[in-house]
């Protein structure tokens, strides 16, 4: 019986081919647009968040008490050994890095600028936040004698320096003396985390310890967990063990980015409802007309003993075929488009100034989530289902005999 319903449904759709095709095209176009939008917009948001997490905050960051309000070498995490041991043994933690930082000055023969000096472990940063991926020039290394320095892109521009040039970095050390070191620029990084691009110089941790005269302690420990859902739990357990420290999530350090994500979610939801609402209206029109046109046909079917449930099945099947075909076509085209932008990225170099203002990457890589397709599927199914309810209601009200006698 089901097969008969399907065949009847298919036949009636085929009879009005151009109409059916239009509906399918409409559904697939709306789906394509929606997927494209969601993927690109989420890509933008996630990229911004990712940049902040990778280059700075991690998903969790630990600081000594009072460090954020009054940063300096007098507020270091002294039990960093215990913390890193705990983190290393926590299966929920994917990676963690320690950094040492101090304000200072970078100078060339021509220019000098205030900078933030970061003592880092290159290998750890690479596996932690893929810092190497931000390198736009030079190489990711400090050379054999740790005399190299990685410089933020905007800072490099302002100092007018190139790879291989000498940079004198000076800072007040823990003994309140001004210490300086001659370094060679080995690489330039662009993280699109504006604060870093504008003022960061990264030097080897050992070099920083020497320069700052701080044999132990770190300024910040940045943590990335295996799964995002574990963040609160890891934060909680760290707080239990090291209650005196400031232990903050990325969204506490970058509240604006979290708001951006929430806004984007809300926006995507509104767009989905709007688009599927309109698309549902399209399906509704087609189904309504196709039921009304065939009142006579259905009347005959009912008169010869077909049950109403079967007629309803036919109508649902018709609607489902339209919706499902549209969904498949839309998912394929939308998915392919997203895949393209996932791999190639959307290049907005011409707007680089504006994007920098937002702290965004010039090339946006789309995000592809199974959830997009699931939501879309449910939405399409819902739209196809709801849009036949009224036509069915009309059909039920209509007297079959009357229907047969109609012209």
């Amino acid at each position, binding site marked *: 019986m089901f097969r008969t319903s399907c065949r009847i449904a298919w036949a009636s759709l085929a009879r009005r081919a151009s109409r059916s095709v239009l509906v399918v095209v409409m559904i697939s*176009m709306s789906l394509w647009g929606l997927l494209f939008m969601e993927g690109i917009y989420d890509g933008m948001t996630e990229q911004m968040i990712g940049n902040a997490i990778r280059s700075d905050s991690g998903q969790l960051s630990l600081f000594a008490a009072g460090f954020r309000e009054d940063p300096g070498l007098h507020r270091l995490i002294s039990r960093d050994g215990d913390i890193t041991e705990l983190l290393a043994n926590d299966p929920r933690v994917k990676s963690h890095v320690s950094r040492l930082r101090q304000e200072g000055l970078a100078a060339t023969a021509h220019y000098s600028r205030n900078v933030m000096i970061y003592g880092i472990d290159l290998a750890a940063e690479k596996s932690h936040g893929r810092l190497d991926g931000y390198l736009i020039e030079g190489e990711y290394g400090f050379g054999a004698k740790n005399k190299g320095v990685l410089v933020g892109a905007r800072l490099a521009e302002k100092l007018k320096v190139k790879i291989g040039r000498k940079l004198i970095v000076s800072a007040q050390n823990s003994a309140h003396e001004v210490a300086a070191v001659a370094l060679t620029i080995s690489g330039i990084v662009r993280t699109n985390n504006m604060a870093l691009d504008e003022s960061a110089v990264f030097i080897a941790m050992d070099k920083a310890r020497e320069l700052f005269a701080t044999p132990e302690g770190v300024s910040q420990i940045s943590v990335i967990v295996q799964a995002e859902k574990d963040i609160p739990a890891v934060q909680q357990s760290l707080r239990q063990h090291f209650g005196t420290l400031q232990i903050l999530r990325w969204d506490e350090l970058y509240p604006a980015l979290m708001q951006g994500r929430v806004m984007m979610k809300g926006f995507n939801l509104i767009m989905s409802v709007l688009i599927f609402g309109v698309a549902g209206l399209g399906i509704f029109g087609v189904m309504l007309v196709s039921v009304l046109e065939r009142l006579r046909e259905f009347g005959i079917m009912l008169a010869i003993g077909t049950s109403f449930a079967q007629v309803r099945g036919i109508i649902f099947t018709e609607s489902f075929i339209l919706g499902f075909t549209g969904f498949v076509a839309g998912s394929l085209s939308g998915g392919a488009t997203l895949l393209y932008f996932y791999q190639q990225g959307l290049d907005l170099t011409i707007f680089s100034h504006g994007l920098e203002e937002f702290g965004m990457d010039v090339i946006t890589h789309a995000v592809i989530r199974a959830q997009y397709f699931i939501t879309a599927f449910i939405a399409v199914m819902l739209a196809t289902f709801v849009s036949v309810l009224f036509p069915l209601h009309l059909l039920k009200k209509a007297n079959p005999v009357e229907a047969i006698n109609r012209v």
Partner: protein
Amino acid sequence: MFFKIAVRNIFAYGKRSIITVVLLACTTALLVFATAYMDGSHARLIQSSVEIYPGYLQITQRDFRDNPSLENLIFEAGQVSASLRDFPGIAVFAARFESYVLFSSADKAVGGMLTAIEPEKEMGISRLAASLKQGSYLTSADDARVYLGSELARRLKVGVGDQLAFVGTGADYSFAADNLTVKGIFQTGLFDFDSRASFVAKPYFDRVMAAQNYATHFIVQPVRPEEAETLAAAIGARLGPDYEAAAWQQTMAGLVQAMRVDSIFGYITLAIIFIVIFFVVMIYTLLVIYARVREIGILRAVGTTPGQVLAMLLLESVLLGLVSVLLGGVIGGSLAYYFHIHPIVFSGFEEQFKQYGLALTAMPTDFAPLVIMRDMAIMFVLSVSATLYPICKVNNFRPIEAIHHV
């Protein structure tokens, strides 16, 4: 004749007409409103960041923007003032002198900006006076009284009435230092600005900093801020090559481009909605016209030419389109107008705005009749073109075929 038939047909196929009109009107309203919102919020964002302090139009010595040193000051402030007075299109203008000093309270020393302003004129230019939090705003007669950013005050641990000292460099490179009394504390909401900026009256500043007749820049408030660029060009021409007059579009180029990017994405979003609407309108037109294939066949059989049928059907869709677009325009326009008067408030998103240097949460929409008309025209063209395919398709039937069409 066609008109009559078209109108009759529209009413005869009431349901189709209503759905089409509702759809198109809603879409038009959406477009009109979305555009009004986008333009309005962008204008507001720019306005707020421009008006907090930077101003719509800055006049500097030619090299100052590239190399802001004491060598590149405006040394003839009086002359610039005289040139700007009575200049058409200027609502108010004021001189400023920005200087970097070291503030010192009890035993805290903090670096910050000490800027000389003309307090009364400044009220017509920036939001400094409106950002007052405690105490009171400055007057020109204030001597050694400072209007301090809230964060700076917090860092120096001073309140209204307290003393603090500053040390800096005068315009002639001499040492400048004095004790100041905090007259007022302001809070713009921009952390960076509030933690660095402080203001004193220019007559006082000129005396201690040896800056008589000097200024780092002039700020001009145009009568029509949207024409700042034209005004800047005119002022630039008047002042000659020793000066540079730059509108906010130039001084805040990054922000302008950021807004443009946002608009582009806004329009992409709208375009996607339009594609869907386009198809829905096309489907509905197709449905209705197919229901009328027989009728059209008969018309053709009795001698109506295909051109006449085409004209009749097109007229129908034009009329429907017009009604929808007008309706939508009125709805969208009224919404835009309403929210222009009663701005939409985004509480809870202050942080996000602040990160972009914007201290505001209320977003008025932009009510611009010309833009609304443009959007209506776009929707009208879209709605009529959506009906072209069904109309042409049905017109291709041969009369006999059409009459027998089921």
